[in-house]
């Protein structure tokens, strides 16, 4: 019999069964009547012999039922009625779970996108990045090791020519702004430079045309370009005839050889188009400027690739070993996904741990509330036990309510997670959004489901344990399990646990806030008011001539100074809050002579320091007299002077930059900048040297402008309407084909440099506030329940002469014991948990005593207030009436 037929034949089966049992009783009775019994006696005897016929009939019916399912539905219906009766509690509980489960879902979606979801390429498990395993003793003598994914041209050539087990391709992981001229309009577009075989390595076929050939990837090969689908569609109206035609990029014609499919995402997500990388050992290839992607060839293994890589020793490796004690470098392949997620993984894991804590706190909170709810139902439960309900049936009910709550919280949590993810995506800088974007997939849904089940179990376990101890007799007599020390201890433990976990979150948030405050309060070193900046790409064929470059700067700056309201204007290769160019130098004289290292640097026009109000501490600023023909000069900042020149009295000393010795003519103040070398904090006062824009050679300019787009900076005396258009016009007067990319104030740049820290602070602070609120609710509930239970006790003591104030003090104190215990436990927990945060903290230690003390006090004071309020009810206890009521 199929289950469907069973379902529909059920009424008939049930009727047959009752008719049959009725017949049985009748037959028995008839027999007994024949033997001489009265009809009533006979019927009673028949029933007696038959047994409990209602129960037996039910057992007979159950054979045809899906017992578990139907019982389950019955339990859920019952739980629903219980929850519906107390809407306030239910709404609050579902809301808390929505936030907690939603936060977990959203954060896990981030982890999923970063670490678990396969990259959006065919066979992503066959993709890897080439890294250098670097280890050695650092300047303070500690042995450190790490992985670096930047490679130089020599390494590229070595792996390209010697590794046969994988397809090799090189790329720049970020884009450069370049100018695309179509018709009369010139646009600023984002160009990612990639080598031949790049798209083959990713496993992506062009939508139209082909990828770059080896010929095109050689220095001074043919100028070709591959367009992104979006650019092709928006700018060229999806014209298939564009293939083979040329478009004007960087002021020269580039032949379009391919269009990529719309779905393609490369490691630089903002790429509008791709041009050949043309890697070499010279120029940019002298530094670690390339990233290398590998795709395992069919039939090859990673062991083979790594064996081939290990046999390679670029000359840089022996240099490193010579200069660094115990220094060692090794080439190895790591999964591409792991390499791409390198920087975001620690903060993502930290935030994941934080949202797990909030879910635990929410569970502890609801477990406490649920315990009280079931406590109030003690006599109802005892009655049901007395009437024959099994403990199992009662347990099912204890679990049904939390399950219903957490399922509702889970469904609403999924919706909340979608909103959270939108907010994340808006707050994150585009380069920090994981490849493939953020979203909720099957894996994330599964985690949500797991969170729902775990939540239900965690909430139910305490009431379930309490109910095991219900004994029928005392409970029927009106005493509740709450009065047993066991269950009130359970509540105290729950509140203590909440407080402990909250303290960890508060401490974490506190440390991040201190970090952010420190970073934001770093002396900026300049005056950001009334300053507007804009970038333009000078990676243009016509600016490979230094004279044209100098003329552009002079003419555009002169035009900008003429804008009404503009006080001064300058150009600099980089701005404060922006990563600078790294360049090598050698100290030629003085106590530190011979120092040969690299530092952040920028070319600037003479007014740069004046426009930004960067103080000149010694010597002079650059002037118009510093030209290509005059003596080469350099200005250093205070950090540079102290670190590399050994004193602040450095005017007149000499640095060798490239081939020529340059004279130090001034010392200027430090500015906040993201470090380019030895990244230890998102912003710091980096050592830096400045060179005059006018002394840049054509060769240097060509290389620098490949990577960096200089900024025009103007200072106004106050707000100027239409300043942006006026600046663009001024630039056009000098060069009609040069567009500005984006206008920024310096405060915006600061915001961008600290975007990740901002997001972390916002998230952790919101979570910590929610945790604090939940644990205060827990403490409040604990103490108000305690007052309720001890009513009689307190009443007697007050009748015997105890003052109200003393009764309040005693209640509050005993209620705060679990809070104090929780704080202690939380501090111990923080010792371990805060290690996770180490990589996110700058300027504070991960166990900063001030922060820990502050959050402990905050927790204690808040809990004292939360505990004091309910104990005021003590004042309303009337000794006479409490004594009478018992």
């Amino acid at each position, binding site marked *: *019999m199929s289950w469907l037929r*069973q379902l529909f034949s059920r009424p008939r*089966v049930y009727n*047959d*069964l009752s*008719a*049959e*049992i009725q*017949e*049985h009783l*009748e*037959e*028995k009775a*008839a027999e007994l009547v024949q033997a001489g019994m009265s009809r009533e006696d006979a019927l009673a005897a028949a029933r007696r*012999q*038959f*047994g*409990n*016929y209602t*129960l*037996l*009939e039910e*057992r*007979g*019916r*159950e*054979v*045809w039922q899906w017992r578990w399912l139907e019982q389950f539905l019955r339990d859920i219906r019952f739980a629903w009625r219980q929850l519906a009766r107390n809407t306030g509690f239910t709404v609050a509980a579902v809301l808390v779970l929505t936030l907690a489960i939603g936060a977990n879902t959203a954060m896990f979606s981030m982890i999923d996108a970063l670490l678990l979801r396969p990259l959006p390429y065919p066979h992503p498990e066959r993709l890897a990045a080439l890294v250098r395993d670097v280890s050695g003793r650092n300047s303070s003598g500690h042995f450190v090791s790490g992985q670096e994914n930047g490679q130089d041209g020599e390494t590229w050539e070595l792996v390209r020519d010697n590794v046969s087990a994988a397809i090799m391709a090189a790329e720049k992981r970020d884009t450069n702004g370049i100018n695309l001229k179509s018709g009369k309009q010139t646009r600023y577009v984002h160009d990612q430079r990639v080598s031949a075989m790049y798209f083959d390595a990713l496993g992506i076929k062009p939508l139209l045309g082909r990828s770059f050939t080896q010929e095109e990837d050689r220095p001074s090969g043919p100028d070709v370009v591959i367009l992104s689908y979006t650019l092709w569609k928006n700018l060229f109206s999806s014209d298939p005839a564009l293939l083979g035609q040329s478009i004007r990029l960087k002021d020269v014609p580039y032949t379009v050889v391919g269009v990529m499919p719309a779905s393609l995402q490369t490691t630089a997500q903002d790429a509008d188009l791709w041009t050949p990388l043309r890697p070499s050992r010279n120029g940019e290839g002298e530094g670690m400027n390339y990233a290398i992607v590998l795709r395992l060839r069919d039939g090859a293994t990673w062991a083979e690739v790594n064996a081939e890589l290990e046999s390679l020793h670029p000359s840089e490796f022996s240099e490193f070993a010579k200069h660094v004690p115990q220094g060692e470098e090794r080439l190895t392949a790591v999964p591409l996904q792991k390499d791409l997620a390198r920087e975001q993984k620690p903060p993502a894991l930290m935030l994941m741990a934080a949202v797990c804590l909030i879910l635990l706190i929410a569970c502890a909170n609801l477990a406490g509330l649920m315990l009280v709810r079931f406590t109030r139902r003690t006599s109802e439960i005892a009655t049901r036990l007395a009437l024959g309900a099994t403990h199992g049936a009662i347990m099912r009910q204890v679990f049904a309510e939390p399950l219903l709550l957490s399922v509702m919280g889970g469904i609403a949590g999924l919706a909340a997670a979608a909103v959270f993810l939108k907010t994340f995506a808006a707050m994150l800088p585009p380069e920090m959004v994981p490849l493939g974007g953020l979203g909720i997939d099957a894996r994330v849904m599964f985690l949500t489901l797991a969170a729902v089940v775990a939540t239900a179990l965690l909430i139910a376990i305490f009431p379930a344990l309490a109910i095991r101890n219900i004994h029928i007799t005392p409970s029927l007599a009106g005493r509740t399990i709450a009065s047993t020390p066991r269950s009130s201890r359970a509540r105290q433990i729950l509140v203590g646990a909440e407080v402990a976990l909250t303290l960890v979150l508060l401490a974490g948030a506190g440390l991040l806030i201190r970090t952010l405050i420190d970073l934001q309060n770093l002396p900026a070193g300049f005056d950001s008011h009334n300053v507007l900046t804009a970038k333009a790409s000078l990676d243009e064929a016509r600016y490979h001539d230094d004279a044209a470059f100098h003329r552009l700067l002079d003419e555009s700056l002169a035009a900008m100074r003429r804008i009404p309201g503009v006080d001064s204007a300058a150009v600099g290769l980089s701005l404060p809050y922006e990563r600078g160019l790294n360049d090598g130098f050698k100290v030629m004289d003085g106590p530190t002579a011979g120092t040969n290292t690299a530092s952040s640097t920028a070319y600037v026009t003479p007014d740069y320091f004046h426009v930004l109000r960067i103080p000149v501490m010694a010597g002079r600023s650059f002037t118009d007299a510093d030209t290509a023909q005059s003596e080469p000069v350099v200005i250093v900042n205070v950090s540079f002077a102290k670190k590399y020149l050994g004193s602040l009295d450095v005017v007149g000393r000499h640095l060798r930059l490239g081939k020529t010795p340059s004279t130090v003519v001034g010392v200027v103040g430090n500015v906040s900048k993201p470090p380019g070398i030895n990244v230890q904090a998102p912003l710091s006062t980096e050592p830096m040297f400045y060179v005059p824009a006018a002394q840049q050679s054509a060769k240097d300019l060509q290389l620098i402008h490949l990577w960096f787009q200089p900024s025009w900076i103007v200072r106004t005396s106050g707000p100027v309407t239409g300043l942006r258009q006026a600046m663009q016009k001024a630039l056009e007067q000098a060069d009609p084909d040069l567009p500005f990319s984006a206008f920024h104030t310096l405060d915006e740049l600061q915001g961008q440099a600290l975007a990740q820290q901002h997001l972390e602070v916002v998230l952790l602070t919101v979570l910590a506030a929610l945790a604090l609120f939940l644990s205060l609710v827990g403490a409040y509930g604990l103490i108000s329940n305690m007052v309720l239970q001890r009513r009689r006790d307190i009443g007697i003591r007050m009748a015997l002469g105890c003052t109200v104030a003393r009764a309040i003090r005693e209640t509050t104190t005993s209620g705060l014991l679990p809070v104090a215990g929780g704080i202690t436990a939380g501090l111990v927990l923080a010792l371990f948990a805060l290690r996770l945060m180490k990589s996110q903290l700058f300027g504070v230690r991960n166990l900063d005593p001030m922060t820990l003390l502050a959050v402990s006090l905050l927790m204690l004071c808040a809990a004292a207030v939360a505990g004091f309020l309910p104990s005021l009810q003590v004042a309303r206890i009337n000794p006479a009436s409490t004594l009478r009521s018992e």
Partner: protein
Amino acid sequence: MTDQRDLFPGALELMILQTLKRKPLHGYALAQHIKLTSNDLLQVEEGSLYPALQRMLKADLVKAEWGISSTNRRVRIYQLTPAGRKHVEREVSSFERMLEGITRVLAPAKGRS
């Protein structure tokens, strides 16, 4: 709640099947027959037959049809299905083997006392 007087799981079913093997019977007659043949040694609550019969109906070991009894009552008569016949043969032989084993284990103990 299991039936306390059900000696071991399946004993009642086995007795019912064995009885039905001789001839089809309705519930009341089945109960009387089991009572009589066991000489009242096994105290079976009459009503516990019915859940057992429902289980066997569902497992397709027996089938039931409404008919008229010898005492002219409208009753539901149970008879074995081929599957039920096979089942009872298998179960009885394994039951007998088990019983034989138990008897052997118990016998020497009796001799020693």
